[in-house]
Each structure stands twice: as C-alpha cells, then as structure tokens.
C-alpha cells in the first residue's frame, strides 16, 4: 500500500526511525468539505466529542470540564440535536467493574451537561465498558485514549434512552 502511494507520486512519503508514513492527506474527509454551522461535522471540528478520564476514575477533571463547557454551549445553540453520552473504560479491574466505571463516567458527563443548562430531556447515557476501544494495546498510549466519554449527537432516541420508553 505504502509503496503504491509513494511510487505513484501522489504524495510525499516521510520516514522516522525507519517508520514510513504515507502522506495522502490533502483531500477533505467525506462530509467535511463544506461544513455548515450546527452540523455534526462542525461539532467534531470546533468542539470535539471526547472527554478523557484519569486511570480508574469517573471524576470529571478540570480539563474535561473545559471541553464539556464548550459542548454544552454548542448544544444550547443547536437544539435540534439529541445527545447520547457514551462511556468507555480501559482500566484495571474486571470487565464488570469497567462496565460500571464506564457508566459512571457517562453519567458524570451527562450531569455536567445538564448543570450547564442542556435540557435533561435531550440527553441519555450508556456505559460500554471495554467493548469499544479507540485503539487496543496495553500501554498508556492506548489506555489514555480509551478512558473516555464520547458525546454523540443523535437525531432520535435509541433503545438505551429512557425518554423513548
């Protein structure tokens, strides 16, 4: 794959310590060419969906609060979106314990959003435990990414939303 990209002259290739990284990068990602205000793409680029947690903790850090504040401000401006707050874990402990931790993380972010003025009718939460890692390895580079909550914009409630019942 890499050889094809480099050999075809489509893009420059860089190397670092013997690691090649094809640089086929100048095209906008699908859906991100023309971004309109209030779109999911705009939320992803200007605000960000992810909030991170310390190892084994469901406490919303001061750093996380900065992201959640931006998310709440955006959500209050863009009321058409519902919000599924998804918790994840990659922490010490059993899978069951991590499921609980991930749900606590999601609940903590949801509570923060509601405190900041997002209507509780629009938000619900779910913990996924270790099921959906961003990336899977046993080092901190991966774990730090996985100890997270994703604020996911939705147009409808799903089966995990109490509002739908």
């Amino acid at each position, binding site marked *: 794959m890499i050889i094809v990209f480099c050999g075809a002259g489509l893009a420059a290739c860089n190397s670092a310590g013997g690691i090649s990284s094809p640089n086929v990068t100048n095209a906008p990602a699908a859906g991100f060419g023309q971004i309109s205000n209030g779109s999911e793409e705009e939320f992803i680029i200007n605000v960000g969906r992810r909030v991170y947690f310390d190892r084994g903790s469901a406490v919303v850090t001061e750093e996380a609060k900065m*992201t959640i504040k931006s998310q709440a401000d955006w959500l209050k401006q863009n009321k058409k979106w519902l919000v599924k707050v998804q918790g994840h874990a990659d922490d010490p402990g059993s899978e069951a314990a991590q499921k609980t931790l991930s749900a606590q993380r999601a609940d903590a972010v949801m509570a923060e959003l509601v405190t900041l003025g997002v209507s509780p009718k629009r938000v619900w939460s779910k913990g996924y435990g270790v099921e959906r890692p961003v990336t899977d390895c046993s080092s901190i580079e991966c774990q730090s990414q996985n100890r997270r909550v994703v604020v996911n914009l939705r147009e409808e409630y799903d089966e995990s939303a109490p509002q739908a019942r």
Partner: protein
Amino acid sequence: MAIDRRTFLGGAAAVAGAFALPQLAQANAAANAYFNGYEQDNGFQYRRTNLNRIDPVWRRQMVKYFSDEPPGTVVVDTQNHFLYWVWENNTALRYGVGVGREGFKWYGRARIDRKALWPRWVPPPEMLKRQPELPRRVEGGAPNNPLGPRALYLYNNGSDTGYRLHGTLEPWSIGHDVSSGCIRMLPEDIIDLYQRCPKGTGVLVLEHLGASAG
C-alpha cells in the same frame, strides 16, 4: 528602553528590534491584520486569530489520512508544516504549524507526559546566545509569552525531549520555518489540541528531510 505591550505584540520584527520606527509602525499594522479582538481563557486573554487572513490550507480541517498510527496519535510533519491528530476511519484532524529550527533536530516517537495551561517561558541558553536581548523568563499569561495559552511537552522513555507543541503570538509564522521555537500553532488550535490529547498520547515526529539539522 521600556518595551511596551504594543511593541511586543508587533511580532518578531519588533522583538528583534531590527526595524526603524516608521517601518515598525508599518509592521505593526500588518501584524494587527492577523487579529480580530481578544478571547478570554482561564483568567488570561489571547489575541483572537483573524482566520480570513490565514491561508485556508493552514486552518483546522478533517482530511483523509492513511496511516498505521492508531487513532489518537499525533503525527507532526515538520516538512509540510502540518500536524495530524489521527481520528477514525482513515481520517485525521489536520492543523497548520510553524516549525522552529530547534524542531528539526529531533524526530522519532514521543509521548505527551506533561501539559500546561498558560505555561511560563524560559528561553533556552542557545536561544539567549543568539538573542541576548530576550527576557530570562516570561510568566504564563504575559502578553509577550511566545508559548501562548498552552504547551504540550514531549517525553521519550520518561525524559523530556525539550520538544514542545505550543501556541504562538505570530499567526503569520504558521506554515513557515521560523528562527526559533518548537512546533507552534494558532492559539485556538493549541487549545483545541490540548483538549483532544490526554497525558499519555503517543506522538510521531517525522524527520524533516532535506533540512539542515544544524
């Protein structure tokens, strides 16, 4: 000579003291076009970037990106003045960066082990040698602090590489090789990146091929 805030904000030329006064005024006017107002952040303020003045290629954008690096990794391409935060499904959030001469000397794998809000700046000895007029230390949040609102410190096997991702007072330097500093980003962009990269984030700095390492 008392250096006032305006002089500092006038940019690199002003700081270097290389311009005569009429030229300085002109440089200030040109520099001011890169800003539109101020943004409050954690008790301090920075000059908001006038994005209309920034070439679209350097603005934050989601691009296709095929790489073996796992999502969440930061890839710094000093040669092309881009920084990528690898996202999902072969995409990455791309930012324009300015690259300092010191930045070329180091490449390889690192990790963000330390992060700082409004970091204090202490110019390294080699920079003071080149520019003896520089202050010995600038507190975080000071209007002449070249690191701007955030810094991400790159470590390798637990030791500080001396290499940082930080903000800039000189938005015109984005997309260019500049005389000093590490990897500089628009203040809005380094704030954004700071929020996306937890401590422990992996970083790959690509070699600056063809550039002098000296």
